[in-house]
């Protein structure tokens, strides 16, 4: 039986298609450009820092009320923690009472956990409670964070997520963070920084659609 190959590059419905639509089946025998399926992750931006003092991604807004933030392969110039901040069009917020948080550190060397918390105000949200990530080869830090209602003028932006790193003594460690920006700002950027020195690595931000 002969096989017929369709060259998809010839398909062009530019008269009716809109940005971000996808080409999909609309019936058993037809196809067309349609809106992407519900719940899609929409890339806001991804960036790689190299020996930088901070890494910022902009482009967040009220289009989505949930954002996913992946931090991967962070390595440090010296043993360091990581700070997380939010900002708006005026810049990254680092006021002494801008954030509240609770962050834990689970270390392979102990059956108990360490925690750091701030209930009145802090200038950043730390991602490693009282611990540091090692700076030697093969060791570093990664995280998956969720940012909710960052552009909402009703509910303050909050972050929750999980981190993993290699701590002092070459221990694998991890933790959970919850944090809050103590004001309903129109968040348009997320920021991470080493607590000392410089770091290298990637941060990616997606907006998650409801439908």
């Amino acid at each position, binding site marked *: 039986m002969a096989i017929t190959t369709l060259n998809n590059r010839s398909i062009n419905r530019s008269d009716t298609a809109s940005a971000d639509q996808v080409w999909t089946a609309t019936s058993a025998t037809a196809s067309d450009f349609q809106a992407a399926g519900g719940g899609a992750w929409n890339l806001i*931006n991804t960036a790689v820092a190299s020996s930088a003092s901070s890494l910022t991604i902009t482009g967040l807004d009220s289009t989505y009320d949930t954002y996913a933030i992946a931090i991967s392969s962070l390595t440090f110039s010296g043993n360091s923690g990581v700070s997380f901040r939010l900002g708006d069009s005026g810049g990254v917020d680092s006021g002494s009472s801008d954030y509240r948080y609770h962050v834990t550190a689970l270390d392979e060397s*102990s059956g108990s*956990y360490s925690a750091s918390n701030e209930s009145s105000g802090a200038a950043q949200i730390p991602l490693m409670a*009282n611990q540091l990530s090692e700076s030697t080869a093969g060791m570093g830090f990664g995280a998956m964070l969720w940012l909710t209602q960052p552009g909402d003028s009703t509910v303050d932006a909050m972050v929750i997520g999980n981190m993993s790193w290699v701590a002092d003594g070459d221990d694998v460690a991890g933790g959970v963070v919850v944090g809050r920006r103590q004001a309903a700002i129109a968040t348009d950027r997320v920021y991470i920084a080493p607590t*000392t020195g410089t770091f290298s690595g990637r941060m990616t931000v997606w907006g998650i659609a409801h439908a």
Partner: protein
Amino acid sequence: MALYKNVNGINIQMTAEEETARQAEEQAWRDGAFDRKIADLRQRRNSLLSATDFYALQDVSMTQDMTNYRQALRDLPDGLTTVEEVEAKEFPTKPQGDN
């Protein structure tokens, strides 16, 4: 040495004001090193103490070894004044046979 911030993948040299703020943050972090270390030690110590608290109940007998172990845990942070001392501090070993 110039400091750089990365915004959306682009390295931007910090202004003098930004560098000053960054250096102040780093210094504050370094200044808090001992407080973070001792807090971490105390939290781990408290967790180990909590795990043996039931020995202090009136209807449970505590062995001398367990008494010594719990006292060693309570004494653990005593006299520590530097990060290096905290890092070198060894936790006492829980007595065998006590759950």
